[in-house]
């Protein structure tokens, strides 16, 4: 039903982005099938620092581990971080935004204050502080990234409730005796699913980049586990002797995030055909 528009705008973004994201998901799920070796255990010093070639398509690292296999498994970590952190952010943002807009009053002031506070602290700095407290690891990473960028979805949810509160069908639901929460989540939420999906898609790309940044600083996933960020962090010291160690994990991050960004753009064009202004 929306196909004509899809062809006019955002078609290419959607397909290229969707393709890249699908590829990343397939790689992550099928990792044990397509990886050639175990990403952590299969170290062999005889094979240390072999440049990309026929035997090792992406080369090997200082411990002789196959970079290709490590990147394949790294997709699991990156996608987990992206999806889980965005689910958390959306849940927090939507719950706070809906309740603040619907109930108003002091609760609205509190939520608005919190949102402004979140916007005043650069999210990577906030995540870094949380990682500093919780210590490195996947779980802390999910918490740190899942708690620090809900302000966009919160704002959208709040604005939408405010404008829909007086609509006939919402009032009708109230007269029918629906509870507040039921109204918020069954009557209002469906109206903002589109923009929320767009925000979450773009946010996943951001979360993957943050994972890489935090792991690079030594605050994210610790070696030997193959996260793309921790691979880069290890590779940095060998940039002169073994540049391929840095090139391939970086490209993996780039194409995955590019895919998510293109997909987000494409979805935005479908959900919000009027928008010409890109993400601010």
């Amino acid at each position: 039903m929306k196909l004509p528009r899809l062809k006019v705008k955002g078609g290419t973004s959607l397909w290229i982005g969707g393709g890249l994201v699908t590829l990343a998901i397939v790689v992550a799920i099928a990792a044990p099938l397509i990886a050639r070796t175990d990403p952590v255990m299969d170290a062999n010093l005889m094979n240390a620092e072999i440049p990309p070639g026929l035997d090792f398509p992406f080369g090997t690292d200082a411990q002789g581990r196959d970079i290709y296999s490590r990147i394949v498994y790294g997709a699991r970590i990156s996608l987990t971080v992206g999806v889980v952190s965005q689910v958390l952010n959306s849940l927090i943002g939507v719950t706070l935004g809906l309740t603040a807009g619907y109930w108003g009053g002091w609760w609205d002031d509190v939520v608005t204050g919190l949102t402004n506070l979140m916007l005043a602290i650069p999210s990577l700095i906030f995540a870094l502080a949380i990682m500093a407290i919780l210590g490195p690891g996947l779980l802390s990473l999910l918490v740190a990234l899942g708690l620090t960028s809900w302000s966009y979805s919160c704002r959208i949810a709040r604005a939408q409730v405010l404008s829909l509160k007086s609509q006939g069908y919402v009032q009708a639901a109230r007269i029918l005796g629906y509870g507040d929460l039921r109204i918020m989540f069954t009557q209002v939420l469906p109206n903002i699913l589109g923009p929320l999906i767009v925000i979450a898609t773009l946010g996943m790309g951001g979360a993957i980049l943050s994972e890489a940044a935090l792991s690079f600083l030594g605050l994210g996933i610790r070696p030997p586990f193959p996260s793309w960020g921790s691979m880069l962090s290890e590779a940095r010291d060998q940039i002169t002797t073994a540049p391929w160690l840095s090139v391939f994990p970086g490209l993996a991050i780039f194409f995955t995030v590019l895919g998510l960004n293109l997909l987000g753009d494409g979805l935005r064009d479908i959900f919000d055909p009027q928008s010409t202004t890109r993400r601010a």
Partner: protein
Amino acid sequence: MLVVLVRRLANIIPTLIAVVALVFLLFSVLPGSFISGMGEDGRTTIDPAVMERMRKEMGLDDPLHVRFAKYIAHTATGDLGISFRTREPVTALIGQRVWPSLKLVFAAMTFAILVGVTLGFLAALRPGSLVDTVSMVFAISGLSLSQFWFGLMLMYLFALKLNWLPSFGYGDGGFSHIVLPAIALGVGPMALLARTTRAAVLDVLNADFVRTARSKGMSERRVVAWHVLRNALVLVVTIVGLQFGSLMGAAVVVEKLFAWPGVGSLLVDSVFQRDMPAVQGCILMIVLFFLAINTLIDLAYVAIDPRIHYSR
């Protein structure tokens, strides 16, 4: 102008207090203090008696609300405490780092604005053309790059392979040392600015007043220079302001990569040494800077667009 300034400052103060409180609570309520961290890493063992004395000295045994009150009172007078690690005042520690950080952040933003706005502008003037497509592919790629990876690649190519530029460090503070970190840091905002400028210029090009200007015979060059640029600027300025936040986040990583002696690398080092006064100080400094920039941006609106009065 003055009214805007006062109003903004009045808004900033509660936010700052909230940030101070949040940072304080985060680091004091949650487990893992500096002292307990000293024994944990397994490399150092520490005499319990010494630990006890240090706790007393640093006031870590006071109840939370007492410490909080002390912290707020000290912070309000510009005293950010003494670094656990170097025993220097945190303000002095940060003071040495502010100028290099500012230089890097502004150099990156300058690069982003020059390249981003130019690309976006050229793209918008010929929508659908090759220039447009190339610029936008360039822009979406810039948004998807991990900035430190890009920095690492720049370092490899231009410093290690071609030997054109120094690979890391601050040097004597000259131009050659800042080029690579500034480009690595600026590429994200550059990409976003290219996209925003394109969208903003396209919007303005279709506006009624531009059609009027054209129909009364104004040359295309004047239409673009006089009406379009000026109006697109408002949106561009907004993005610049918002981007300073993520720029300062990313600066932490880029500073660390290029061994740049800024607030960001101080923050990371302090985190690893669990030097909490320094960590808190750095975070406050970064937030303060971000809020200050956004105040300046609000003032810039008034200067650019006479319709904005802030008379609400």
